[in-house]
């Protein structure tokens, strides 16, 4: 393990800001994301760092700023540090996910109420939407789910990275992001049927229709294959000069 010292002084011309990690003060370069600033301060992350690119929801962060009563939230990997941030990383979100067998479910409101009866407790306070680092209208999709409008619930919730901040803030104790998952799967399975061309192609493959073609292609010497690739491929969809 590399030995590191806490960086409390600017070592070059980098502009520094003062932040608080779990209550302790650190000076870090102002250009860093919250995640990189925590590492700069000397922490080796295990919790709270996953994809580091805004897709996995591991780095949900709650913070306040000096002189500001509001609670802010962010993904640590997608947010630049600011002077006076009081940061806390969410290591884990306790939120029960219902277990279900998709094969047996109907895309009806009763399904949602059976697995997540708590959606009916929504107070319409909209705290969930305000806390969402993806700026999703969480309350709207909870309401759509409660009404069985899974198409709308799916569309509104689609960009959810499942960080769980909504579930932590909800006074009605709804695990919104799990609700959204069920809504999307019901919609994706029942309302967005695959086109017939897919089934047809699967059958052709299973019937071995391409086996001859594969045998021929796979037995070609490299120079023949190369010629086929560079000179015989046709591009029917793309504009080529």
């Amino acid at each position: 393990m590399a030995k590191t010292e806490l960086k409390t002084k600017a070592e070059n011309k980098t502009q520094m800001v003062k932040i608080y990690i779990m209550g302790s003060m650190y000076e870090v370069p102002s250009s860093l994301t919250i995640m990189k600033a925590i590492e700069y301060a000397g922490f080796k992350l295990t919790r709270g760092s996953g994809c580091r690119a805004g897709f996995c929801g591991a780095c949900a962060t709650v913070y306040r700023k000096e002189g500001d009563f509001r609670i802010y939230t962010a993904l640590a990997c997608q947010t630049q540090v600011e002077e006076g941030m009081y940061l806390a990383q969410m290591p884990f979100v306790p939120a029960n996910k219902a277990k279900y067998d998709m094969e047996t479910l109907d895309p009806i409101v009763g399904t949602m109420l059976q697995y997540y009866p708590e959606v009916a407790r929504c107070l319409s306070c909209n705290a969930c939407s305000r806390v969402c680092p993806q700026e999703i209208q969480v309350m709207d999709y909870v309401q759509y789910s409660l009404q069985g409008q899974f198409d709308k619930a799916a569309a509104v919730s689609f960009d959810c990275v499942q960080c769980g901040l909504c579930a932590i803030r909800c006074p009605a104790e709804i695990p919104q992001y799990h609700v959204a998952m069920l809504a999307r799967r019901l919609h994706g399975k029942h309302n967005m049927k695959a086109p017939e061309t897919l089934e047809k192609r699967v059958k052709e493959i299973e019937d071995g229709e391409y086996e001859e073609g594969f045998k021929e292609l796979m037995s070609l010497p490299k120079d023949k294959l190369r010629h086929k690739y560079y000179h015989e491929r046709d591009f029917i969809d793309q504009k080529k000069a």
Partner: protein
Amino acid sequence: MIRGYPENMRKSIENVNKTRAKRLTETKADLTEAERKEVLNNYHPDYNPKFKRDLAWGPNKGDNIPNEVADVIEAYPVVNPDDIDLSKIDYDVGVLIIGAGGAGTSAALWALKKGVPADKILIATKLRLGDCNTVMAQGGIQAADRPEDSPLIHYLDVIGGGHFDNKPKLAKALVNDAPKIIKWHKELGMMYDQNPDGSFVENAGGGTSRNRMHCSKDYTGMEIFRVLKDEVINKEIPVVEFSPAVELLTDETGRIVGTILYNIETKQYFVVKAKVTIMTTGGFGRLHVAGFPTTNHYGATADGIVMAYRAGAKLRNLESTQFHPTGAAFPEQMLGLLITEKVRSLGGQVLGYDGEQICYPLEPRDVEASSLIKCCASTDNYVETPTGMRGVWLDSPLIEELKGKGSVEKNLSAMYRMMQRFDIDISKDPILVYPTLHYQNGGILHDENCYSSLKGLLAAGEISGGVHGKNRLMGNSLLEVNVFGRRAGITAAKEYKKKGVKSGKLSLDHVKKSVESLDALKMKEIRHSPMILPEYRSEAVRDRLVKLYEDSC
């Protein structure tokens, strides 16, 4: 700063705006075979001898691979075999899956489907279920399911894109299973984008001759993974999190019979005995090959390769690394993060400082990346950021002209949101990009049923070698994790049910032997591996970026 960009960059954006109308109908021609060769040889890090060396020991001794990968292979184990009590078994399972990404979860679901009871499966993972590259894949997944396409055409695209160095049977499995995978995904309830007539939205990809990129906006990998994860939890398949495998276990015959897990939070070791082990630990982006930033998740440190190699597994195609042509070069906070190829699938072009096209936007990835490096390293037609990064423009506003107003936000909502956080509106302004380390083209050698060269060990996903040859095409990695994850699960179920397979005494003898081989090398620098997590607590991390261009020339 003016709408997210400093003034000097704005000047170049004016050039981009000026040429846009002309470029609407003009696409620069793709390169000939000879031109491709020239740009790869001169500018792709794979072809630059200073980034590589010959591996000094083991089954692939002599293979010319990236220095950073050789560093973790030519390294002493972190575990001292004498410290582990192998007589006490913590988990005794039928199918052990190391790695909980797309391949690992697919494998678990298919092993279950083919008859392995859930409580006889164990998924072990370094971080959380789903801290993986799958969840970060944006652009799409290839499947030749339109009437004007076929698995044979897909095959030729794959083989040519891989410089004819793919293992043909693996390439066939990849393309031939693709429609089946999409069908499975639809049964699970995944939401692939569809046109109003019910057909799938299918886009172009670099090096593909048909539009066959299925997508869920630019959250394709996330949509696939969160459904797989939901299903793993529904089926009550046991998952051990924050517990990376640190060594495999072998018996007297060399058969793989389990692993040692290390809980990175409680700092305890756990012994797992398994009838069959599937290695799905993903790639090596966090080794920062050739000094590049990476698109990969935090745990992508080649651990699986290291462990399997110590146990004697043969590797393949590790000489080849994929640099994604378009990583973010600005703002600094997003440096190296993926700007999906879908931007180019939808019509986005790559432009120099002068606003003119640098190359055909949909070359295979290695060719496209090399063309961009060439522009930044050997011409002055690049854009410089305030921190000294160089990049070229990816003209996303062109998509609004080609596909209609609002299409950027609709089809690229992740990219739009990411840049919006830094006050950049990619529907109005282009994105500054430079190649970034993206994908491990090679890895553990296996056959089409995922058998590695070692008894008891299967491999699937990014850790595998041979599927993509020397270069992977867009949309074939989401496909790969599902195709070979599924095949590994099916094979594992078959192995699980086999009667009379004897596994002998659990041992770490192969680790002791590897130490002897390493001693014989008399290495000056003593390193240890697997790395488990990269080290980001030093100045060196940021200094590395400045060297990027010097090294590219």
